[in-house]
């Protein structure tokens, strides 16, 4: 299963430096990584280790300072603005760490904003049902709890049936029961569509459902663990 044709992302010697006045912050210091079709990986690491930065660059939301990232053989570091837009539009489902819902739109409309421009989406209602929000369709973000907002963000990401799913702490605000519902939804998309999925989490237990567990520390990949017995989310406890 692991061969050249199956590589979704290839990351080589990736660095990201934030310039803050005279101070330089090295968020990534040369990360190397591959992600394969249908694979589900979990990214672990202490706060500030560069997880979100890595995911943002993979999702075409940010640019690297140096190094190389390709998506299915296409060089993302050299992609034009238009190519990046197209990439984000048709290939990536992204769950932001801070949700970033549009305050003036309801839950349903927040999902519709994405499905309206996707190629092969599910209906917003179906996507929201998958995260257990069928009875909150017409609520505005301000009328939803933090966890519910997070679930809208997830529904939005999976609704377009993407080829890659990038989730930045998708269960951070959720109790274990709801967390399991959400993870099941992610896993289903991963399983049924072969969507390559990367999940950032601080919850080591979630790592049990991954094919591989990637550890980041201080801007570098410090350890890659292969999990040969992927658990179903239902069997995870936290």
């Amino acid at each position: 299963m692991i061969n050249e044709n199956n590589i979704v992302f290839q990351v080589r010697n990736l660095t990201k430096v934030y310039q803050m006045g005279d101070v330089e912050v090295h968020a990534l210091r040369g990360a190397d990584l591959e992600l394969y079709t249908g694979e589900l990986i979990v990214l672990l690491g202490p706060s500030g280790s560069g997880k979100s930065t890595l995911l943002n660059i993979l999702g075409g939301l940010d640019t690297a300072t140096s190094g190389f990232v390709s998506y299915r053989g296409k060089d993302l570091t050299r992609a034009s603005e238009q190519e990046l837009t197209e990439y984000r539009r048709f290939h990536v489902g992204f769950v932001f760490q801070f949700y970033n819902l549009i305050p003036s739109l309801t839950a349903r409309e927040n999902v519709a904003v994405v499905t309206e421009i996707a190629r092969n989406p599910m209906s917003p209602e179906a996507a929201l049902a998958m995260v257990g929000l069928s009875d909150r369709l017409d609520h505005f973000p301000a009328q939803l709890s933090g966890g519910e907002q997070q679930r809208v963000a997830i529904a939005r990401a999976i609704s377009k049936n993407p080829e890659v799913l990038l989730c930045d702490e998708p269960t951070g605000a959720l109790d274990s029961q709801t967390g399991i519902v959400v993870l099941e939804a992610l896993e289903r998309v991963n399983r049924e569509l072969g969507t390559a999925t990367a999940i950032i989490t601080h919850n080591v237990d979630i790592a049990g459902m991954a094919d591989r567990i990637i550890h980041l520390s201080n801007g570098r990949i410090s350890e890659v663990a292969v999990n040969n017995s992927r658990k179903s989310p239902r069997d995870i406890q936290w």
Partner: protein
Amino acid sequence: MKSLDRKLWRDVWHMKGQVFAITLVVVSGVATFIMFITTMHSLDYTRSSFYRDYNFADVFVNLKRAPESLKEKIKEVSGVKDVETRVSAHVKLDISGFAEPVTGRIISIPDDGRPLLNRLYIRQGRIPDPDKDNEVVIAETFAEAHGFALGDQFAAVINGKWKKLIICGIALSPEFVLVMRQYAMSPDFKRYGILWMNRKAIGKAYNMDGAFNDVALTLYPGVKVTEVLNNLDNIVGKYGGYGAYARKDQISHRLLNEEFNMLKTSSRIFPTIFICVAAFLLNVVMSRTINTQREQIAALKAFGYDNFVIGIHYAKLVVLIIAAGLMIGIGSGIWLGKILGGIYMEVYRFPALTFILEPWVIIAAVVISIVSALAGTLHSLWRAAGQPPAEAMRPEPPAKFKVTLIEKTGIGRWLTQPTRIIVRNIERKPIRTFLSILGIAVACATMISSGFFKDSVDYMVNVQFVLSQKEDIAVAFTDPTSYKALYEIKRMEGVHHAESFRTVPVKLKYGLNSYKTVINGLEQENLLHPLVDTNLNQVIMPKEGIILNDYLGEILGIKAGDFVTVETLEGARTIRQVPVVALTKLYLGVMAYMDMQALNRLMKEGDAVSGIYLTADSRKQEKLYGAFVNMPRVSGTIVRNNEIRNFYDVQAKGMLFFTFIATIMACSISIGVVYNNARIALSERSRELSSLRVLGYTRGEISYILLGELAIITLAAIPLGFIIGYWLCAYIAQALASDLFRVPLVIEMKTLALAAAVVLTAASLSGLIVRHKLDHLDLVEVLKTRE
């Protein structure tokens, strides 16, 4: 795209406070723009069609007396198309129930009742019966001023004989769109009227059977006017011609031109100022509004919306926000234009005002508004969309991380934490702070520029009528009269003091330039009618030589020390070189001044006077008027108080109206800007302020943080607004200077105070609204979502 459109409407609804403020700004800018320009177009069109349809003449000559046969000679002058000879004269009128002196100008109507040129538009009644010698048509303004109806009667002293006249018609003429006495300061519809009578009737009274003393003629297109004027002067010279003049020097036309030029300048300056101010504010406001949507823009980009779609989305938002303002602005601009046109019609008489609304005016207003709003939008959009979404999704960092002044100087230790937040916020966003200050300052300056006009007119009236026209009554003689007349009048009962004056119509020439005006001869001991310059100093009349108004000096291109050629158009008709002693800055008129005796020497006439200025016992004035009506030598009388009243009643009315409108518009712009500034600050910072509340700050403290900053911005804006306002006024004053008058740059304390008061009131009210919103801030809701 449906969801995005829904977002659009909800966002507009959510911003309704701001939308209201922006609407105020747009309405004011657009309405003022359209009002001025359509009024200008309408008057321009109305005038030229009246001139064309009623054959307004191109050239006019007055003379003493010439036989009708001279008409053929005039016709032969090359370039002349139609010629009409007339008899005209100034008469004193005696109107029962109105004791003051009234002067009329009688003009003849040809015996067939059909003037070829300067045809009459009969508003009511008919032209005089050819067989009657006592029927007159009178000008509409005169009829209205006295409440005359058809069939009413009044008397005239025609060539010394008292005669009863019956009104048979009320009319307008292209020759008298503005009815005003030559060299008067303002029109006086009550005390000066135009009458039209049968040629036969006047001819008999003035001994002008088969003769004429007034010619009007038209020219073929493309003819050189000056050549015709010279030829005419040669022909009528020996019949006592007073100098032919072209339409541009005809009094009604000339004053109309002045007024139109002023309106034209105003309609260039004011709408430009208003629309630029509106555009600038729209730009700033939009850019800040879009900035508050920064994170949403980034999120849309992250979903794969491209910049174009996002751009269109926000363009729609902008158009929605200003659409209401545009529509109301266009509607009220047209409405106000009609009102302003109507006010002008009270002074300038045309058969009917044709309202002209050129499509480009509306298109220009719409395009300028939308483009300036979009420019502001694009700027912010560009900044938000130009960054990688991951970066734009984070709150905007301060421009530069640096230690601020309060930390450096250590002043911070003495300030409370909220005060430190205010100072730091102002310091960290210097550009934004500056733009906010500038926005309010410009609004304040607009207020000043609209109020300034009234101030400068008041000032001018004061200089003209109070400081340099101290007489109660001015008496004019039909012909230059012996100096003895002065003593006669001094002896009349009730006269306190009297001084004589001499005016001579002349043509001044220097090099290739020439200008027709009058030389005022003033007595050395001049108490009643001093010449006052723009520094309010009395100009001392030199014993020899001539003083020119600096504006006239500019027209002639002459300097002090040069010799000007003076060609007198009365009496002996001398041509002399006279040294220019000084160019003096005066507010009104384009005239020349000489010592009276020097002027008389120039004329080679002994001690002649043209009239008398006098002060008199107020209880005896009515008696004096009566006496003057009965003195054959007196051609007219001007009462100073009436002139001031008239100036405000008649001439200043249009101006005061547009000052009023401009002030209201400037006022709403100020309110719009100040309120908007407060609302945006609130939406930009409600999250930060809620966090502070959650951390234990009181309502008072967070209100202080926001309102304190607004207060500092407002207070800084007012003095800056005064400075910008002063510049604007200086520019307007300079642009409005014309033949008739120079606009003094006078800004009264109360205009400044009003501007400051409007800004402060708007700021206080906005502060109250914002405070109310802050008190009701839903902490949980604000913190739960990111905006």
